[in-house]
């Protein structure tokens, strides 16, 4: 689905990532870990076409991102759900409208049937906040709303960048539970986090592989954390 082949990325001076190869197979569950500033967010951005590699090749659904037009990138993002640490919403629209925004912008709002939307909001536990504006929500509620928005298009892949960064432990577990459920439904999941406890908790429920960025390279971490 998403393949990185000997990818490097540099911000002006020097490489942040070098010789990174990664293949996200359908239905796989990966954690991406490493110290702050190691390039976890950069790697995720390479995976949804926000950044272009300075060397190597990134393929989204079999197509080289360098060959893709802006519209191609937009269409592939409709198949990739992204959850940011600082989830970005349109503050003038209600939570329900924000969650269904991906359907709206792709001209598929007809599919946003009220039943589907309320079922989804129910799943993330935000039914009662459907009409609230994003600034009125708590950190945990915003993260769950971002997750709901990321999955409403029925994406093949879900990329989450520190999804539990701003929420307490209980809420972290709840979010992880939702991501595990999505993986059981066949979605490919990649979560960037520095929270090893969270990884341990998740490994009890799902066969997750852990990737670690160290010295600008990507390593497959051992079974013991």
């Amino acid at each position, binding site marked *: 689905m998403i393949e990185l082949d000997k990818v490097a990325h540099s911000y002006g001076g020097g490489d942040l990532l070098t010789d990174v190869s990664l293949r996200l197979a359908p239905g796989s569950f990966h954690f991406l870990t490493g110290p702050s500033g190691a390039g976890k967010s950069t790697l995720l951005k390479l995976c949804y*076409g926000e950044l272009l590699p300075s060397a190597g090749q990134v393929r989204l659904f079999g197509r080289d991102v360098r060959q893709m037009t802006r*519209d191609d990138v937009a269409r592939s993002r409709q198949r990739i759900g*992204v959850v940011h640490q600082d989830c970005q919403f349109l503050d*003038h629209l209600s939570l329900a409208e924000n969650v269904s*925004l991906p359907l709206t*912008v792709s*001209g598929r709002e007809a599919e946003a049937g009220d039943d589907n939307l309320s079922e989804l909001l129910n799943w993330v536990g935000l039914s009662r906040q459907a009409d609230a504006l994003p600034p009125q929500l708590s950190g945990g509620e915003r993260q769950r709303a971002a997750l709901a928005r990321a999955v409403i*298009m029925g994406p093949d892949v879900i990329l989450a960048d520190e999804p539990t960064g701003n929420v307490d432990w209980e809420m972290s577990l709840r979010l992880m539970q939702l991501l595990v459920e999505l993986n059981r439904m066949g979605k490919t999941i990649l979560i960037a986090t520095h929270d090893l406890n969270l990884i341990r908790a998740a490994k009890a429920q799902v066969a997750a592989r852990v990737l670690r960025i160290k010295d600008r390279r990507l390593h497959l971490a051992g079974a013991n954390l």
Partner: protein
Amino acid sequence: MSALGKTVLALVIGDVQADRVVPPTGFTVQLTVFTSAAMAFLAVFALALSMASGRLADRWADALARTATVRISAPQGQMQAQTDAVMAILWTTPGVADPRVLSAEEQRALLEPWFGPDLPVDRLPLPQLIELTETEDGFDAEGLRLRLAAEAPGAVLDDHSRWRRPLVRAADRLRLLGLVSIGLIALATAAMITLSANAALSANAQVIKVLRLVGARDVYIARAFVRRFSGRALLGAAVGTALGMVAVALLPGADPAGGFLTGLGFHGAGWIVPLLIPPLAAFVAFWATRIAAFRMLQEIT
């Protein structure tokens, strides 16, 4: 044409959803509407000016080009003989049609505006005027002057070109200036819309980023802004055009003698022309915003 039709249709019906995703903006909306109205108001006057001077140039060029006058100044006794001689020459000159001796009443009517109605014309040593029209081919003015000088020394040919040509040229130039003004107004409108669209795009950079993140294509994002600005330009220009047309209609009526300033305005079907200003403003706004939006979107992945 069908693409334009669809654009207009899309502007009228609109994509309410695309509109909703961009937060409403307050004060700048009114500025855009106001500027667009002011520009349309000015455009109506530039249009009225260029159409009026166009009519004037055409009228002078057409009506006066085909006429000329022979003026005979002779002592009382010789007047009739010279007039007959001139008429004989005119009848036999190729290119001259319908020479006509103006009657005393007609000459008095011509002088009335200057000397009043009670002028004793018959007691004044007035020259005799002969009016003639040119045929399509025209006549040789120099040749005619020579013949007149030989046969009737008191006769002078005036083919009006001496004062007509600079007037026609001035009227033509005025029409050109009017058209240049309309062009400048259109460009200024485009510049103004581009500036305010850029301001709106910058103010909404975060919104645009979110939209790109959730998979919106450029054309979807651009449409939300394009619709908004085209609508404002259309509304403003409609109001400005309406006010401008009312102002032109309320100008003092045209003087039958064809005065220039009082002739400023639209005539008959000419009233349809200013109605093109609002759709034109919307068209300019459409492209200005679209180009600004796409240029800005290039900077966001």
